[in-house]
């Protein structure tokens, strides 16, 4: 019953996504659509962190490293291949390979939570300072200059069977939205498989999972690599939305934003961080148009307030509230029915109350959860 409702919810979200994908281009202006493409790419990045942090329990502060690697790998590969189809695959594989190397060191070295967070952040920061220094003709991979501070112009996606037919920005929107929906369905499916459940059990109690015979290191590495692949896909979509890739994908601000989307949206959900990414994308764009309040200041306050005040994030908090309300109402309805029964049949009251109370306490316990 709950599983069925679960799957229905997941399909409903996907259906809303598909509907949005079909309707949006005919309703919104082109400028908004192009902006949306960028927001969607960031939402995919948020989704990747939602998977590995919310379900895998891996606190990765530098998820944008894989995002940036995906964007750079796609751009460099597309320039060298002269087409985008294989470049997308290369981008995802390079991101996964990088994650496997870093992850091997961290998980097989049994590095603790805090260390892991800081190491991933450091990796991202060092990539930032490394790639910033690659300006000039000496630094190139194949035909593509790395471009240092200015980055590289990314070739747009083309049709898989015809590399001369390049997609227009409004078409890239469909690709991005399709990517987001597929990534969402894939991650929702993954969290429902045996593999996903083992990952959640490791998040809940690593020692117990290990004593039950699961190789914790392997599961963590695997989900980390999957998350990195999704982040790599996000990077591909991002550099297509923006039209170029710059070292800024690796900077501290992007790392912080990624974390904030997940915190605000809610750990342990997939839709929360996606909505968080959209919400904060529009908030920061709105803030960018004025100069009285600084962007960093607002984000800093949001992060501190959420950590102290709403540590679960918006979606789980709202879901808890609705669930509590619903079970309270169910309890009230049951009580009323019982009272009516009691007033009708006088002698049956004791039995009725006796029968009613286990249900009642059950509902109350559920409400207090």
């Amino acid at each position, binding site marked *: 019953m709950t599983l069925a409702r679960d799957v229905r919810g997941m399909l409903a979200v996907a259906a809303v996504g598909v509907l949005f994908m079909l309707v949006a281009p005919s309703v919104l202006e082109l400028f908004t659509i192009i902006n949306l493409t960028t927001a969607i790419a960031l939402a995919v990045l948020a989704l990747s962190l939602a998977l590995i942090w919310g379900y895998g329990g891996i606190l990765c502060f530098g998820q944008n490293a894989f995002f940036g690697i995906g964007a750079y790998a796609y751009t460099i590969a597309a320039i060298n291949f002269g087409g985008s189809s294989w470049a997308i695959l290369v981008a995802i594989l390079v991101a996964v390979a990088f994650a496997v190397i870093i992850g091997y060191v961290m998980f097989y*070295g049994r590095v603790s939570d805090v260390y892991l967070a800081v*190491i991933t952040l450091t990796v991202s*920061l*060092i990539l930032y*300072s490394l790639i910033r220094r690659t300006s000039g003709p000496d630094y190139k991979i194949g035909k593509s200059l790395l471009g240092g501070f200015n980055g590289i112009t990314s070739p747009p996606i083309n049709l898989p069977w015809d590399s001369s037919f390049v997609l227009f920005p409004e078409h890239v929107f469909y690709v991005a939205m399709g990517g987001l929906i597929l990534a969402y369905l894939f991650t929702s499916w993954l969290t429902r498989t045996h593999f996903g459940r083992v990952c959640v059990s490791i998040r809940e109690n690593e020692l117990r999972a290990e004593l039950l015979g699961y190789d914790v290191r392997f599961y963590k590495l695997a989900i980390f690599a999957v998350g990195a692949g999704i982040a790599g896909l996000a990077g591909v979509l991002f550099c297509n939305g923006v039209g170029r890739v710059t070292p800024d994908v690796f900077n501290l601000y992007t790392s912080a934003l990624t974390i904030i989307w997940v915190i605000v949206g809610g750990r342990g959900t997939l839709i929360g961080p996606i909505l968080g990414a959209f919400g904060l994308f529009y908030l920061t764009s709105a803030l960018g148009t004025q100069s009285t309040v600084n962007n960093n200041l607002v984000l*800093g306050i949001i992060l501190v307030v959420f950590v102290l005040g709403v540590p679960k994030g918006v979606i789980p908090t709202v879901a808890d509230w609705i669930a509590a309300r619903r079970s309270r109402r169910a309890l009230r309805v049951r009580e009323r029915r019982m009272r009516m029964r009691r007033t009708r049949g006088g002698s049956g009251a004791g039995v009725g109350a006796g029968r009613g109370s286990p249900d009642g306490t059950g509902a109350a316990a559920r409400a207090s959860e």
Partner: protein
Amino acid sequence: MDLVAAVGLQILYGIANLALISLGLAIIFGMMRVINLAHGEFLMLGGYTVVVAANAGVNIWIAMLILAPLVVGVIGVVVERLLIRWLYGRMIDTLLATWGLSLLFIGLVTSIFGASTATTISPPLGVISIGEYTSSAYELLLIGITAALGIAVFLALKMTNLGLVARGTMQNAEMASALGVSTSRIYMITFGVGAAVTGLAGGLLAPVTGVLPTIGSVYIAKAFITVISGGAAILAGTASASVLLGGVNGIAAFLTGPTIGEVALLLTAIVLLRLMPRGITGGIFRKSL
């Protein structure tokens, strides 16, 4: 010979620089097992204190050696009382909260001083010559100050009563509090001292690097990796990791250039952590400070 001396001095400066920017972070990490993600911003605030004070006519030495640690130390205590205190035992939330704080400080300083470089101050003291090479005398002074700072922390931990209590808290906080030590007060002082040392470092580096609201991100990658590689022991960890990573960075940078230097630093740290996940002092020198 002169070349060797000059390069050796440069590598030594790299090591001292690493130790200087990491020591404050290491104090907080060693005592509280918390990585302060606003560390870069504490350095930045130290730098701004010096620049603002020097522009207001305060003697630059007073600004660097007294005002910067004082101001940032007070900020550290305030932050600990208002924010960190509520999050003890919730390590990940502490990380996130200090990250929020980091963004908040960047935003605040940008709002007040603008996003570009504040008026810079030039490094005091001139250059000294080693044969045909020259070196900044200020860099030599920084090496000296870093060494002095390390010795001061060592003496404070070993010789004073507060240091004894702090070491006890570090080893077993519950036992210390059972013996009547107010661990909350110790944590407050530790955070304040860590912030003050960081402020001093930021102030001392301000003439070399200039100040920007986002300058913290230049330091933190190196500071984090140094402290993590060093492990929990404050002094032995910082010293050993600085020597190792600073040495590798310096030699690789001398041979190939600064870009490869930083990559070599990171690779060394990653290999090191695969071998010793708790850092150097988690593997060897366990009983050290």
